[in-house]
Every structure is written in structure tokens, then in C-alpha cells.
């Protein structure tokens, strides 16, 4: 063979090898993508999943734009100034209402949530959700002049009873805080100086599961606090969230009155949860609350006609305690995630923002009252129309398109304008309450560029991809967490294999997903089968699926309030840690490896990412092994077990592991179990 032919042969061999390698690589890549997405024909764009899907594109990572994510808005008594919480940047934005532009920004901590103004507008009170304080802002000097410690993760805030009422979301309680003594607020701290604590907590009450919004009556004698979630009730009872009412108009005792303690009433909102927004109606003994009525007790076999969930408005008559529920949806069109509610000063109109549908609904309150009067006259219960979607045509005046993910609402003091915090557009919408049309958009100054994470956040919060826009991802994962409910998906039989919803916080690195552990990645979890069995509409386009996965993986769990800042454990927590890692029982007998806590819940995340049989399966489950959940912030993940039947951590062992099926605990006794749980709360 000549040298030329040998070279040609070598070249051909190289080409063949390269082609074979490329073919093999492509074959492997197709299989790899199919394994992690559960579908064939997906994009083979490596960068999409391995770069953008883990925090955004390279440009995203270099630029790292900080979005404002305005959440709540308050209007000064003269209507001239708006105060907007910028939850993304930690600022309270000051907006000139006439000029419709931002005039200043006040740094108010880590993650400001809600804002309330003093009656004279001299002070703004802002809850800092991550720092567990209320910041007091002197609106004249635009400086933070004090802080008030609260419970865990303060959210809603209202002025009532001569103090401040704060909903502590993660504490499942509310705080009544006394304002700083005297008329003069504390002196302003210089920049960089720690603001001194001011004021004290007068009293703290239990307030349902995940208290969220708060409202005070104009006379300051009542306050209402909503709860986002219903108390865990197990899979066989429909959820019912609570409204907590504080009433200073007649304290329960003279001593209580002297101490400034209110009478506390609890209103159970039957068959509803996600009470996100609340307001008192000016001039009337009425309060309005947004709500969602889930249908989790039914198999999720269709979406039409509200088979998954419907949104509603609760009307509470504060004098009698009657709580009526009216639907906000229509028979074939839904307005997802009712988020906030506001009423005009004349009490004739109310507005509800729908975070999932980018719409504000205008409600004719007079028409709603007339309808409820008809019900009373007919002797029908106040919530008799709660599921009658066609009733909404009686009182819904308009559906007003607004920016992405509308949240906080506020009506101007003269009642002419409605302001809408458009969270995912970084804008403030201005609506004319007479014409019910959008008048203007106030640009709050957020970044122009949309990152992958921001797109994912929009996908997560939008109901656009669901049939008839009935719900968004957020509808079942409020605050990126969980709704505490159990669902029956039809793909594995009706009435069988009920599954508990799980938190999305800290989900990164915990694959596989689903209780049966069959979804190998978030791409599969949020892919075609998600559309087929849940949203019933088109699957997310690939770029949105990647962005959604990126967003979900970016969700960090909140700071664990049960763990000391320096990581030190209490005595009980230390004892609990020893129990968690123990290899022998209290009687000295060895615990088999598979029966130790730390075997299935190893490492920092507390999961081996395998399926195990812990005796939790019921006769209605098709299998006995379930995915091992991670333990990060397990204290806030109630209910527990794959079907949510354990309402508390204790019940996992005291009720559902009588034979030590879920690790050896029967030898611990009450105190030992308490120690174990104390430790688990720190994880």
C-alpha cells in the first residue's frame, strides 16, 4: 500500500471513529435527556439544563440584576405619597403620586413584606419577613427610626388597639406590639448604626396556620388576621382556614381591658384556605377576605367547572360574626390566586387582585349585599352560593387587566384611584375607580432585562398554562412552600394513592421527586405528564420548563428559627441529636442499620434519596415504599408522611409507627420523643 493510500486509510479510519463517537454521544444524549425529562424529542441543548437550569445563563450570572418585586402599597392620608415595599431589594420605595415617579428609597432590612401607615402618615411600619422585626420609618426624614421584634417571619401588619398587630407567618401566631412610649419617635440612627429596639410586645396569640394578612378597622378597635393555610386535618377532612379577630370594643375582663388585651374570636372559613388579603369596608361593619376553595377531596380528573379549585370573597359581618362566601370565578373562566382586596371609602366597590391571572376584579358590593339579603330572606346559609360560579355575574363589574402578578392593592383616600403592586413587572398600576380602566403605569425602576430565573418565577406564578386559567403552580405552593393538602391524581386510579403536597423550599439536590420517586428531575416533574394530569392544557414550552426548573432550584429555605445563630444546640436538642444518630436502644440492644434514623436520613439534607417502606401505606396505596423526604426545615412541613395523615411530627411515631416501622422509637418514652423532635426542628 502506498503512503498516500495509507494516509487516506488512516484519515478514513479517523473519520469513521469520530462519526461513531459522535453517533454514540448523540445516542447517549438522547437517552440522557429522555431519562431526565420523561419525554422524547426534547432539545439536546446541554447549556439549557446544565447552565441556565442551574441559576440562569452566563449573562444572568454576570449581571445579577436585582428585581424590586413590589409586594404591598400604602397611601399617605393626603394621597400625595405612596409607600411600596420592594421585597427584592429590601427597600421601602417612596413614590410621588402626582408625578407618578419614585422619589426615594429607604432601606428597611432584608425582605420587607407589608406596610402600614400611622393615621397621620408620620410613620410607616414595615414588616421585615426575614429579620423578624417591624421597622419604623419616619416618613418626614425618610429614615428608619426604630425596630420592633416580632415572632417568626412577620407578614401582615395593621394598627389597632393602640398598637400594632403583626401576623407571624412561620410562628403561627400574631403579636400585638406597643408603640414606643410618648409622642416623639426614637431618634434616628445614623447610617450603618444598628437601630435600637423600640416598643415591646404586649401579647401574642395563636392565629391559625401560617398567619398572613392583617387589617385594622378605622376606629382602631378591631383587627383581623388571616391564615394562609388550614390547620393540618388529614386527608379525610376538607381544609378550613381561620380568621382571628381581635376586638378591643369590649374586653373579656376588666383586667384584660386595663392591660390592653382584646377579646379574641376565631372565625372558621369552611372549605377554604389561602386567605391572603383582608380589609375592613369603610363605614360598615364588614370585612372582606380573599380565599380559595380547593377540591382536593375529589379526584383530580378534570379542571373544568372548578374541579381543582375556585377563588372567592368572604364577607364577614363583624357585629354578628356571619361569614358569607361568594365566588369570584365564572363557570368557564377562572381568575387564579386572589391575593389582596381593597374597598372604596364609600363602601360601594371592592377590588381583588388575582396574582395568577394578571387581573383585578371590580366588585359591586351593593349588588353582593343584595344577593346575600336574598339568601337570608330565603333562609339559605350565607355560604350557599360559594360554589355557584354563575352568581358572580350578579356583582362582578369588571375584570381589569394589569401587570404581572398583581399583589397589594390600595385605594386613594378620595376613592378615585386604585394602586396595584405589579410584583413581577416591578411596576405600580393606577386604575380609575370610576371608569374601571387602567390610567397609568408607574415604573418603579426595576431591571429591564429578564433573567432565566425571573422568567421561571413568572411561569411559576402564572395560571396561563392551565385550562381556563384555573390555577398556577403557586396556587398549590403558596410562598413557594406547600398548601398542606393531599391530592388524588387520576393517573393511578380514582380514590387511590393519595399524596401529600411537599414544600419547594430547599428542593435543589433532592431528586427524585414525587412520593413514588419516579420523577428523576424537575424537568420531568414539570413536564408533559404535569400537563396531562394536572393543568390539562399545553405543556410548558422548553424554555419556560428550563426557566421554571431553574427558579425552583433557586428557592432557598428560610432561616431556621429553631436553630441558634451560632449553631449551638440546647440540652434537649443535643439529646435529640444523640437519639437521631444512636445505634442502640435504651435497653442496650443494638438497632439494626435499617432502623436507625440516620440511615435513611443521612447527611446535611437528611435524605438518602431512596424509597423505603416505613409502614405508612394504607389499603388504598398501590405500593408500600415511598421517597425519603429531606429534613431541611421539616418543622414547617406539616402534615407528614406520604399521604399527610400525620398532622404533627409526634404523630409519625405515636400514631403511625406503633410497631417501630418508621425507625425504633417505642423505647424512647414521651421525653425521648420530645428530644428527638426538638432536634428535628433544628434541621
Amino acid at each position: 500500500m502506498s503512503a498516500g493510500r495509507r494516509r487516506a486509510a488512516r484519515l478514513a479510519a479517523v473519520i469513521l471513529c469520530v462519526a461513531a463517537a459522535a453517533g454514540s454521544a448523540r445516542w447517549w444524549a438522547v437517552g440522557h435527556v429522555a431519562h431526565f425529562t420523561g419525554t422524547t424529542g426534547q432539545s439536546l441543548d446541554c447549556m439549557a439544563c446544565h447552565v441556565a437550569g442551574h441559576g440562569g445563563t452566563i449573562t444572568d450570572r454576570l449581571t445579577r440584576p436585582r428585581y424590586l418585586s413590589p409586594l404591598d402599597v400604602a397611601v399617605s392620608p393626603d394621597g400625595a405619597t405612596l409607600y411600596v415595599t420592594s421585597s427584592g431589594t429590601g427597600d421601602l420605595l417612596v413614590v410621588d403620586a402626582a408625578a407618578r415617579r419614585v422619589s426615594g428609597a429607604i432601606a428597611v432590612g432584608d425582605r420587607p413584606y407589608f406596610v402600614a401607615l400611622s393615621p397621620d402618615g408620620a410613620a410607616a411600619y414595615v414588616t421585615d419577613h426575614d429579620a423578624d422585626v417591624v421597622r419604623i420609618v419616619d416618613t418626614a426624614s425618610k429614615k428608619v427610626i426604630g425596630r420592633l421584634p416580632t415572632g417568626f417571619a412577620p407578614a401582615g401588619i395593621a394598627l389597632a388597639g393602640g398598637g400594632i398587630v403583626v401576623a407571624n407567618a412561620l410562628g403561627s401566631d400574631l403579636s400585638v406590639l406597643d408603640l414606643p412610649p410618648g409622642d416623639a419617635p426614637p431618634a434616628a440612627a445614623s447610617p450603618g448604626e444598628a437601630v435600637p429596639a423600640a416598643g415591646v410586645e404586649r401579647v401574642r396569640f395563636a392565629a391559625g396556620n401560617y398567619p398572613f394578612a392583617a387589617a385594622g378597622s378605622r376606629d382602631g378597635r378591631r383587627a383581623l388576621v388571616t391564615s394562609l393555610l388550614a390547620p393540618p386535618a388529614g386527608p379525610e377532612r376538607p381544609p378550613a382556614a381561620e380568621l382571628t379577630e381581635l376586638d378591643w370594643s369590649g374586653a373579656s375582663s376588666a383586667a384584660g381591658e386595663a392591660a390592653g388585651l382584646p377579646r379574641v374570636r376565631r372565625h372558621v372559613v369552611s372549605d377554604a384556605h389561602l386567605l391572603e388579603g383582608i380589609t375592613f369596608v369603610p363605614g360598615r361593619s364588614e370585612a372582606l377576605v380573599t380565599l380559595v376553595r380547593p377540591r382536593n377531596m375529589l379526584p383530580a380528573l378534570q379542571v373544568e367547572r372548578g374541579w381543582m379549585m375556585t377563588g372567592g370573597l368572604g364577607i364577614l359581618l363583624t357585629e354578628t360574626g356571619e361569614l358569607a362566601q361568594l365566588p369570584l370565578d365564572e363557570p368557564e373562566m377562572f381568575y387564579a390566586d386572589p391575593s389582596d382586596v381593597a374597598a372604596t371609602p364609600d363602601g360601594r366597590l371592592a377590588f381583588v387582585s388575582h396574582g395568577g391571572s394578571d387581573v383585578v376584579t371590580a366588585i359591586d358590593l351593593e349588588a353582593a349585599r343584595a344577593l346575600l339579603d336574598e339568601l337570608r330572606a330565603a333562609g339559605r346559609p350565607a355560604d350557599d352560593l360559594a360554589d355557584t360560579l354563575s352568581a358572580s355575574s350578579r356583582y362582578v363589574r369588571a375584570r381589569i387587566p394589569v401587570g404581572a402578578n398583581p399583589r397589594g392593592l390600595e385605594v386613594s383616600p378620595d376613592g378615585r384611584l386604585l394602586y396595584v403592586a405589579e410584583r413581577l413587572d416591578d411596576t405600580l398600576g393606577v386604575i380609575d375607580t370610576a371608569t374601571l380602566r387602567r390610567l397609568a403605569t408607574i415604573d418603579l425602576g426595576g431591571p429591564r432585562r429578564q433573567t432565566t430565573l425571573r422568567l421561571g418565577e413568572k411561569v411559576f406564578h402564572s395560571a396561563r398554562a392551565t385550562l381556563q386559567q384555573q390555577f398556577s403552580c403557586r396556587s398549590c405552593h403558596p410562598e413557594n412552600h406547600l398548601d398542606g393538602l393531599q391530592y388524588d391524581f387520576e393517573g393511578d386510579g380514582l380514590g387511590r394513592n393519595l399524596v401529600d403536597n411537599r414544600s419547594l423550599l430547599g428542593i435543589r439536590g433532592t431528586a427524585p421527586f414525587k412520593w413514588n420517586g419516579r420523577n428523576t428531575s424537575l424537568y420531568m416533574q414539570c413536564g408533559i405528564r404535569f400537563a396531562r394530569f394536572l393543568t390539562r392544557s399545553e405543556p410548558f414550552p422548553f424554555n419556560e420548563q428550563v426557566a421554571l426548573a431553574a427558579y425552583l432550584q433557586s428557592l432557598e429555605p428560610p432561616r431556621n428559627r429553631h436553630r441558634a445563630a451560632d449553631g449551638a444546640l440546647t440540652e434537649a436538642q443535643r439529646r435529640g441529636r444523640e437519639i437521631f444518630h444512636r445505634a442502640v436502644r435504651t435497653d442496650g440492644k443494638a438497632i439494626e442499620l435499617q432502623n436507625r434514623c440516620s440511615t435513611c436520613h443521612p447527611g446535611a439534607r437528611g435524605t438518602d434519596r431512596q424509597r423505603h417502606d416505613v409502614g405508612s401505606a394504607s389499603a388504598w396505596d398501590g405500593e408500600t415504599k415511598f421517597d425519603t423526604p429531606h429534613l431541611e426545615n421539616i418543622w414547617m412541613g406539616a402534615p407528614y408522611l406520604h399521604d399527610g395523615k400525620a398532622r404533627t411530627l409526634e404523630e409519625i411515631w405515636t400514631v403511625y409507627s406503633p410497631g417501630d416501622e418508621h425507625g425504633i422509637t417505642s423505647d424512647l418514652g414521651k421525653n425521648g420523643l420530645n428530644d428527638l423532635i426538638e432536634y428535628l426542628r433544628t434541621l
Partner: protein
Amino acid sequence: MSWLRGGAVAVGLAAAASALAFLPGEPADVSTSRPVTLVSLTGTSAGGSGSAIGRGDGPGIRLLTDGFWSAESPSASFDGRWFLFTGRRAPGSPAAIHRLNVDGSGLRAITAGAGEPGEPILASGDRIVFTDRAPEADGGRALYACALDGSGLLRLTFGPHRDGSPRFLDDGRIRFERTLLAGPLAGRRLMLTVHPDGTNVSPVPGPEADRDDEAEPDAARVVAASRLAEGAPREMGRLTVTPRPAPPVLTSIVNEQRRTGTLLCLNVRDSALPSVAAIPPGAIASVRARRVGGGNGDLAEVVGEAPVHADGSFLMELPADTLVGLTLIGDDGSELASFHTGVWVRPNENRGCIGCHEDRGRAPANRRPMALLSRPPSAGVVYERR
């Protein structure tokens, strides 16, 4: 010689179209930015009456369906570049669904065979929906779907009735009109919706009354009444073709390998019919499903029966793709009430309803039906995993 007659009609229609261009009041806009307008025409010649489709956005009407004895029911593509129509080459020849570019090029037959397809509309995902004969009854018609190349034919609606006037709703479902041809409610018209895979057939919410006779508004379609004198070539309607968003592609759980689906009813007594709502609790022992028969449209053989639980719920496995009517059976075996309009399930479909002829404007109550607390009859079936 039928092609000769067809040709004659086409020539006649072409002449008619030319004549229409000079009629008083006819706009002569030659702007190129003007949206395409398709005009449906009828005409008469020595060969009989026929129909055609032309372009009406130019200085006259230009015939697009030359060579067809009849061409009707134009339906535009989402990008506004082509349209579907039902065409017949000659009197007596089989009709077929065709697609044609709006400039008259690219003619292609989509369907073929001995059927009588009509009323084509474009679906998302390169599929079409149209009506054709329903074999269960003389004069019966049903909705079908197939791909743009004619493959993947799928029947969407079932029963011995006449279905027509399909149109897509913005949410991706199909709305259509059903005329009952037989049975005690013969002649009654219903407005129904169905998913593009034939699942979730459901009456349009609102009073379950006969359909309003007014034409359904359609953003893309402007139907004009005949404006010409009797005997002259007539313009039957206009279709303004502009790009429009495609409806979403609804996902499907239909598994053609299975032969059944299930029907879950939450409470049979939850009904807008006073006679049903008045049945005392506990008086209904079971519910019986019978096929809605062919000839007289009455309820025929029994295809399923399920106990009604104390809360009024039942779960029944039904043969797929079969219109069934339900009968409520009392403790003593008597028939308490029968529902003739019927319902069907597609293979693997799990269908839910609140009650028997419930208020369509209502959402269900959030209660676990007792029917699900007993082992489902289909428990042995291997379901697809989500």
C-alpha cells in the same frame, strides 16, 4: 359527463364573480396591506347550482376554487396564509376536505373516501376537526379529527344524532351543536363542548335550553346575508383572513388500547331537574347505563350498573365511545328517572359530574365521594403513572 357539468358551473361562477365586482356598493380596495377576504359564492348554470370560494379583497372577486363543482365552508389557517374547505369536483362525486393557499396555489386534498366530510376547522398541532357521517343513524353526523395529511383519523363525538357547527374556544375545547334525531327528545338542539380528543363532553353552562338560533359570533368570520336579487349569482358570506393565535393543544389521557372509561358522579340527586332533586335521599339504589339505541334513539341494552351510595355518589365503568343514557333505579327495582341525552367516555377517560343534569354554573363541593371508598371496579387495571 359530470365533470363537464362541474366545469360549466365553475365557468358560470367565475362569470358571476366577475359580475359581482361591478355591482354597486362593492368596495374596490386594491391596497396590498388589506387583509385577505374569502367570499363564498353560489351560482347556477346549465349543470345546476354549485358553490365556490373566491378572493374578495381585490378589485373584484377572483375565483380560487376553479375546477370544483362545489366549494364551501372555508376556514382559515392561524397564520392567514391558507384555508380549508369542503370541495366536490362534480355533482355526485365524493366530497373531501382540501387546503388551498389564499393566492390559489398549493391545492391539496386532506380527506379521501366515501364519506361526506364537511365544516372543517383547523386545530392546533397540525390537525383538523370536521363533521362526517355518524353510522349509528340515518342522517347522523359526528365530529372527527385527523392530521393535515389525512392520517390519524379520530372520532370525537358519539351517538345517533347530528353534530355540526364546530368551532374552537379560546381555551382549546371545541364547541358544537347537537341535534337529537331520535328518542323522546328528538328535534331538540343542544350546545355542547368537547376536548379535541373527544373527552369531557359537556353542555355549555347556563340554562339547559334549546340553542339560541342566532349565529355564533366569530372574530374571523363575517357572515353577510344574501345581498343580491333572486336568481342572480349570490355572495353567501365573507371570511376575513387574518393571523390569529392558535388555541392551546390540550393534553390527552386517552389510551386507545383500553376499551373502557369511568364515570364518577358525586350525587345523583344534585340536579337542576326538580323531579330528580325531589327524590328522597336513600331512595335510589343504583344507576343503570344503557346504550342510546340506533333506530328510535331510545335506551337499548344495559352496558353498566353501579350502586348509588348513601351520599348519592356512584362510580361506573363504561364501554368507551358509546353514548349511554342513565336510569335511576329505586329500591324496588323501579325506574325512577331516565336521562336520554346521554354521555360517553373515551378509552381511559375518567369523567366526573356533580349530579344528574346539575346546575352547569356550579362547582362541586369538596367532599370525598363514598363511591371512592369502596374498591373501584377498575382497580385491576394498570394505569399510566403520572
